Every structure is written in C-alpha cells, then in structure tokens.
C-alpha cells in the first residue's frame, strides 16, 4: 500500500512540476507577449482542459509501443511514461489557471513600480510575489488532476505490481476482482492525498492573502 501511494504521489509530483515548467512561462507569454500565436496557444489550453486522459494515454502508449515511433527508448510501462502522459494532461489546466490569475492581477503594477524608480530586478521580485498565490493554486489543481487520473496511468504504466501500480489503477483492479475492501482503502488514501494538497493550497493562500 505504502509503495503504491508513494508511487502515485511521486509520479504526479514529477508530472506536475514538469507541466508547470512548460505552462507557467507559456502563461506569462500569453498575457504579456505580442505574437499573434498567443491566441492559438490559449485556445489549445482551453481545448486541452477537456482532453480525456484515455486519449493522452493512447497517444503516449502508441508513441512508446515497441514498434512505435519512439519504441526504441523502451519507456512503455515505466513510471517515466506515466509521468509524460500526466504532464500532457496537466499542462492545459495549469496554463489556463495561470493565465486567469495573471489577468486578474493588476496589469498596471509593473508600470507603477517602474514609475516609482524601482530597479528592474526588484520589480521582477515584487511582481513574482504578487502572482505566486495564483500560480501555487494552479499547480496544486494540476497535481489534483494528475493524481486522480486513471486512464493514462493504466495504458502507459500497465499497472505492474511493484513497478507502475498506482492508487487509481490498483483500485480498478481490486474492483474487477470484487475486492471492495481493498478498493475502498486505496480510494481512502487517494482522498487523503487530495485533502493534504487542498490543505496546503489553503494554507499558502491564507498566508499570502
């Protein structure tokens, strides 16, 4: 159980952080950049919010299948493949939420600080501090989606005991075998993890508010 829960958390944390590394700079570019392609990327994020994990799982599984385009890297049925799939699932969510948080923050703030002779580096720090709570909420929401997702984890991980079994895929297997007690305990742990994530989000927001 501990192993399964730990792998769930580890894979989803890696996927969420990887997604944040892509999505947050993208959000900054969407809000502050000038290129017309921004609208296209924002639309892709919007569409991606409803992206079914099974579709992503299918695409990643196909890509890493032994005879697939990237079959030679031998990643299918590894935690890495699961993390890659979850990253793709989570990028649109973090990106969209980060864009919303940037748009609701005062866009004249950067100008105001410049107009008060605040040096560039301090301006950057003060604005980062301003948008941090919104970004933290976006990242935690992303983690929630990643850890709760089952379709892609099943297809790219294969639910191999001791290797790629996570809470969601373990639950599916247990229900399939009629082991409801076991299934309920997995779900209880999963809900516990979600509660901790929500608690962290709330604490951070309180502290920053």
């Amino acid at each position, binding site marked *: 159980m501990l192993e399964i829960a730990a792998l769930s958390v580890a894979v989803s944390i890696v996927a969420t952080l990887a997604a944040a590394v892509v999505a947050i700079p993208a959000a900054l570019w969407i809000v502050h950049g000038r290129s017309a392609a921004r609208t296209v990327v924002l639309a892709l994020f919007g569409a991606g919010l409803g992206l079914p994990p099974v579709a992503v799982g299918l695409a990643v599984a196909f890509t890493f299948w032994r005879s697939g385009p990237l079959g030679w890297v031998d990643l299918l049925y590894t935690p890495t493949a699961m993390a890659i799939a979850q990253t793709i699932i989570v990028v649109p969510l973090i990106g969209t939420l980060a864009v919303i948080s940037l748009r609701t923050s*005062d866009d*004249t*703030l950067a*100008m*105001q*600080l*410049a*107009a*008060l*002779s*605040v*040096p560039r580096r*301090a*301006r950057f720090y*003060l604005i980062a*501090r*301003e948008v941090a*709570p919104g970004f933290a909420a976006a990242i935690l929401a992303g983690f929630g989606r990643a850890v709760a997702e089952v379709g892609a984890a099943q297809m790219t991980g294969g639910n191999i005991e001791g290797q790629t079994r996570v809470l969601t895929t373990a639950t599916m297997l247990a229900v399939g075998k009629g082991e409801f007690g076991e299934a309920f305990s997995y779900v209880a742990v999963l809900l516990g993890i979600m509660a901790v994530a929500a608690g962290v989000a709330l604490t951070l927001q309180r502290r*920053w*508010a």
Partner: protein
Amino acid sequence: MGITAGRLVARRGRFVLDVPDFRADASGTAVLGPNGAGKTTLLYALQGLIARDGSVEKPIRAAAVFARPAVLRGSALWNVAAVVSAALQVSFADAQSRARSALGDVGLAIRWSADARTLSTGERQRLAIARALAVEPQAMFLDEPFANIDADARPDLRALLRSYVERTRCDLVLVTASLADARAMCANAVVLRQGHVVHAGSLAGVTSARDEYLQALVAESRLIL
C-alpha cells in the same frame, strides 16, 4: 534640473499624441485638456512607460501618482516600505520608518496595517502620494492625484506636495481637470486636444485663452470659489 523633451510622438491604439516640445521644472507644469485629449498618454510618454518616438531628458529618480494607483498585496506600510527600500537601496528597517512618517503626512497613520487592496479609492490615492514622496524623487508625475480625496483634506495634501517641491526643487508635471489644483501647484500649463498642444505658456496666460474647454474650467472654478 528640469524635464526637457523635443518632439514626442506616442501611440495608444488608434490615438496619436504628437507634442512639438515639452519642458517642466520645479515651478510646475499643469497638463490640461478635455477627457481623451492625451494627458495621461503624455505623462506616460515623458516617463518612458510606453513606446515613444523622441527623447526625454529627466532626472534619474522620478516618482508617479497614477489616476488609479496600483498597489501590492500587503499592508499600506509594506506597500510604501517595499518600494522605498528598492528605489533608494536602503535597509528595510530604514524604509519602514520612512514609510511610517510618509503615511502620517498624508493622514493614513492609523491605517498603516490595513491591506492596501481594501483601502477606499481616496485612501489608495493618499497611499500613492505617500509612496511617491517617500521615494524622494527629483521629478514627479502626478495624474489627478486629488481626484477622490476629501475636499477638506485637499489643501493639506496640495501643501504637502508643494512644500516638497519647493524644498527639493523637484520637477513637477501635474495632469488635472481642476483649475484649483493647477493654480496651487503650477506656474505653467500646456493644453492638449486630440493629441496636440493647443496652448502652452504661463498658467494665467493659458487660462485666459479663447478656448471653450478652458473657459468652462475657469467658470467652474469661479463658481466654486
């Protein structure tokens, strides 16, 4: 020191500001004109906050009060102290004591711990004035700084800003729709209309010009006084 600009062109969307030249010093220059004439655009262009063609010479340390001041998350005291510490490169403790005295000067002493985002519009403007003065600027750009401030507090705040300007010989540009504010703080004026300067010179000279907007401005100030 003085603010000096040659021809200045700036665009905001379809609007084009085209000013042949501009000067301001400690005697104060008021920027007058109807809504949409380009007053704020001129202020932003002088400060280099928006893209512009033409160069502006001005002191390095400037401060601005925007018509709608932006504030940071945190207390009023923190808002001023964070800016002061960054702009003047002083320790945070030093910045805090300067911030406390600046907030006292604008009548926000008892509101120092309030979250800046919860302040009323007028209180936010006072905060913005405190913040601008605490930066110890050599040039000030004020955009309707008293618009939402109680009538009974306006004279004190005008006097506060004016005494700073007189003491430090700080250059002053004031965008305003109030002749009383302009008279209290500025000896000179430029009048904008649709992005162009239609009058420039001494405030008294400008306000006696044959101009519908200016005549209305003068009539209104007589009505009040």
